[in-house]
């Protein structure tokens, strides 16, 4: 557990919660990143606010890299595994109506039974594949 970073985890999680809360308090929308991004692409109605949200998502690391001098992160190689994972995440979040943000943060906070079940299932499946492969 020498890689445990509790302080940055707590600060980062607080920002995630605040951002999601801002969207609910102002626009009355659940901050589900998979849903917002896919509708920004595939649905004309309500596209402008969804695109603005996605632009905010894209710029977050740029802002952080300006503020923190030692900020860096790894990225995956382009491989069959990476593309297959992307396809599974796309299919799964669309069929399951949400991802880590929509179900894991917003849904559980509203005591939604669907979101609690979805979160337990995708966490278990994630632990399964990451531990085995």
């Amino acid at each position, binding site marked *: 557990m020498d890689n445990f970073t509790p302080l940055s985890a707590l600060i980062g999680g607080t920002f995630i919660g605040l951002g999601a809360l801002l969207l609910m308090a102002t626009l009355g929308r659940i901050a589900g990143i998979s849903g917002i991004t896919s509708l920004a692409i595939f649905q004309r109605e309500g596209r402008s606010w969804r695109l603005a949200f996605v632009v905010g998502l894209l710029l977050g690391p740029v802002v952080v890299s300006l503020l923190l001098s030692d900020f860096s992160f790894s990225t995956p190689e382009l491989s069959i595994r990476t593309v297959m994972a992307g396809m599974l995440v796309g299919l799964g979040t669309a069929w399951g109506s949400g991802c880590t943000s929509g179900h894991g943060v917003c849904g559980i906070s509203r005591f939604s039974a669907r979101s609690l079940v979805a979160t337990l299932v995708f966490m278990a*499946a994630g632990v399964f594949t990451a531990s085995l492969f």
Partner: protein
Amino acid sequence: MHIVFAFLAGLLMSVGIAVSKMIDPAKVLAFLDVTGNWDPSLALVMASALAVYSTGFWLIRHKPAPIMAEKFHLPVVSKPDKPLLIGATIFGLGWGLAGYCPGPAISALSAGSIGTLGFVVAMVAGWYLARKWPLPR
């Protein structure tokens, strides 16, 4: 004004994803892989995000409407069904393979990695296919 607040919400969440290092697939995989050098950080990211959001949601829950819109848009279906279970399983399998869920993958695009781009293009293709072939209840 809608787009300003939506932009700020996305930016705040993405800053959180970056600061917490969830943007780094290696960090996420170190949490999901319980057989190796286990890193519990992601549990604290979830816990603090949940603490902030659930407190805030509790405070605004009886408001008649959000500040900038005519009503709250909350999902009505609340029982788990077959598409939810199948979808969450498939999502989890993909998450554990690459260490990316949608937020961190989109945020990481600014780094200009071809691997991240490949993941996101495949994810968008997955969204398209799932919209074309919805699962029966």
